[in-house]
């Protein structure tokens, strides 16, 4: 493992920001620390950087314990949430700062800074001050400033939080490409799961100072290990029970149910494709149809329960109040102990994935 946190604990007064955090990150990976605000993810990042000191546990970089190594000697580039660009320095001086502090050769500094400026595509803007740049340009400068001194590890605290939604999507792509190009091991903090899923190779989910789950975006999505992850990832509705739903007779008392839109299928009764599954079908009424840009979001009332599903625009038109056949392929069941997938028993032997 290239970067490791071992049994890290940290308290701020009564508030536990980190409870026994353990994880390792391989060299070259781009990892997201994902969690709701106040979950402790930023604190974990700051402890890695050396900006905060953990109460107990070890931080290791390249196999060496760096607990007592000051932040400036850990070989880390850090992109702050609001970028913390030096407001009274030009773009050029911002990027050159780290190299100047290391007393690098003047010519070398100049070469490196110009290389960085062309890498981030801000040629011609090197004399500008930060407040003369757009949000996206500022983020690029912050990125260049962080990697100019050739750090071994790049840490980014909510790198997209301060940017307009419109530019954000482009910047995500840009940042991912840049990091791949530079080939630097990187960890970023975010509260936006879409962002984490899109950008990161691996995701670490943090909640209330605990590490909930770590893995690739797909594996986390498909196999949530804890109730928190099951709720947090994807869009999901939480139901108290599934009373009366065909195929879910054996749901134990006291377990809650998570249903995602992709677990629900709604079709017109004359649809031949689902002919073999009619024994598992419930009847539902369309309550609302919302156009989501590239698909429709249907809300259906089924057995007194409200379910949501997405419908391709290529399929037949549906109306509010229309009766539909509703299939529930599977659900997540969870209690305080953990989460599990429960498939519809009546669909046993049918290969749903082949549909």
């Amino acid at each position, binding site marked *: 493992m290239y970067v490791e946190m071992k049994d890290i604990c940290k308290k701020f007064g009564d508030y536990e920001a980190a409870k026994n955090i353990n994880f390792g990150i391989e060299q070259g990976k781009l990892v997201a620390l994902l969690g709701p605000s106040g979950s402790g993810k930023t604190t974990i990042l700051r402890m890695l950087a050396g900006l905060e000191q953990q109460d107990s546990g070890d931080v290791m970089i390249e196999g060496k314990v760096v607990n007592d190594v000051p932040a*400036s000697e850990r070989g880390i580039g850090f992109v702050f949430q609001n970028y913390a660009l030096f407001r009274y320095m030009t773009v050029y001086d911002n990027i050159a700062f780290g190299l100047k502090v290391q007393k690098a050769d003047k010519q070398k500094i100049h070469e490196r800074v110009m290389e960085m400026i062309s890498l981030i595509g801000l040629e011609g803007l090197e004399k500008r001050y930060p407040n003369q740049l757009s949000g996206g340009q500022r983020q690029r400068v912050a990125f260049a400033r962080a990697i100019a001194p050739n750090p071994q590890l790049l840490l980014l605290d909510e790198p997209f939080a301060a940017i307009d939604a419109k530019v954000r999507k482009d910047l995500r792509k840009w940042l991912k490409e840049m990091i791949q190009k530079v080939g630097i091991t990187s960890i970023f903090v975010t509260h936006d799961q879409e962002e984490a899923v899109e950008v990161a190779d691996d995701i670490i989910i943090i909640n209330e100072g605990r590490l909930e789950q770590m893995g690739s975006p797909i594996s986390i999505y498909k196999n949530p290990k804890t109730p928190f992850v099951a709720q947090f990832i994807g869009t999901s509705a939480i139901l108290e029970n599934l009373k009366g739903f065909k195929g879910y007779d054996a749901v134990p008392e006291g377990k809650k149910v998570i249903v995602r839109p992709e677990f629900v299928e709604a079709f017109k009764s004359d649809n031949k494709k689902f002919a073999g599954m009619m024994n598992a079908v419930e009847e539902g009424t369309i309550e609302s149809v919302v156009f989501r840009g590239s698909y429709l979001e249907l809300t259906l009332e089924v057995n007194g329960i409200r379910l949501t599903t997405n419908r391709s625009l290529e399929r037949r038109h549906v109306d509010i109040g229309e009766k539909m056949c509703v299939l529930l392929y599977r659900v997540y069941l969870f209690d305080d102990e953990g989460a599990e997938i429960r498939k519809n028993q009546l669909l046993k032997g049918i290969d749903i994935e082949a549909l």
Partner: protein
Amino acid sequence: MKQNSQKIVQWILIGISVIFFLLMLVLPLFEVIYRALKDGLESYGRALTASNTLSALKVTLIATVIAVIVNTIFGVIASWLVTKFDFRGKNVLSTLIDIPFSISPVIAGLAYIMTFGRTGWAKPLIDGINDALGTDIALVFSVPAVVLATIFVTFPFISREIIPVLYAEGRDEEEAAAMMGASGFTIFRKITFPHIKWGLLYGIILCAARAFGEFGAVYAVSKARGKTFTLPLEIDALYMAGSADSITQAFAVSSLLVGMALVMLILKSIVEYRGKMKDKE
């Protein structure tokens, strides 16, 4: 009709303000000039070049310059401490720094007399130091005493101007610079200082204005006219002498301080204006 009544209210309020302003603030300035020049320019010149006046001017300038330097050093360091670090007792510390704002300057003078004076507990200490070094420094009824009292009353002036600026700035930039391995001095010079430049200058002007005008605190620890008197004390001495001539001289010396005060106000307005322009950029 509503428009009309609004205009009337507006002009009444402006009228009240202008009258208050003229009576309370402008008229006194003219009064000083009028009384200073009552006996003609020649006697005005004589009053300003009297040896006591010149000595007082010298002491005033010494006290002002030293007070500004000491309080600048303190103000910058204390604001750095209060805004860049978290520690227990921070609120108490901030409150203690502001004490001189809320107490009578006379008490400041009193405090030094009781510490370093003839019966003060630190007197033996000072004597000991003087014996050891072969010096003859007195911390009451001397120029150093005047300087100390001046420092006391102007102590929080600079930190009070800088602390809000640094709070608003946050710590990110300093942390970012520290992450890259910059030393404390480099961080201050390159990152922090550009932020506080205008606030610091503003604080220095207010500090200087208060320092050269201080009366109560200095009055308590300065007794030797022509040696340890500052301009305000010299004015007091001339005024209390009571003769028509000496009162005119008192106003002549006062006009000098009025000039200094106006210069400070103009500088302050310029700094304020430049600072605002800088913000808008």
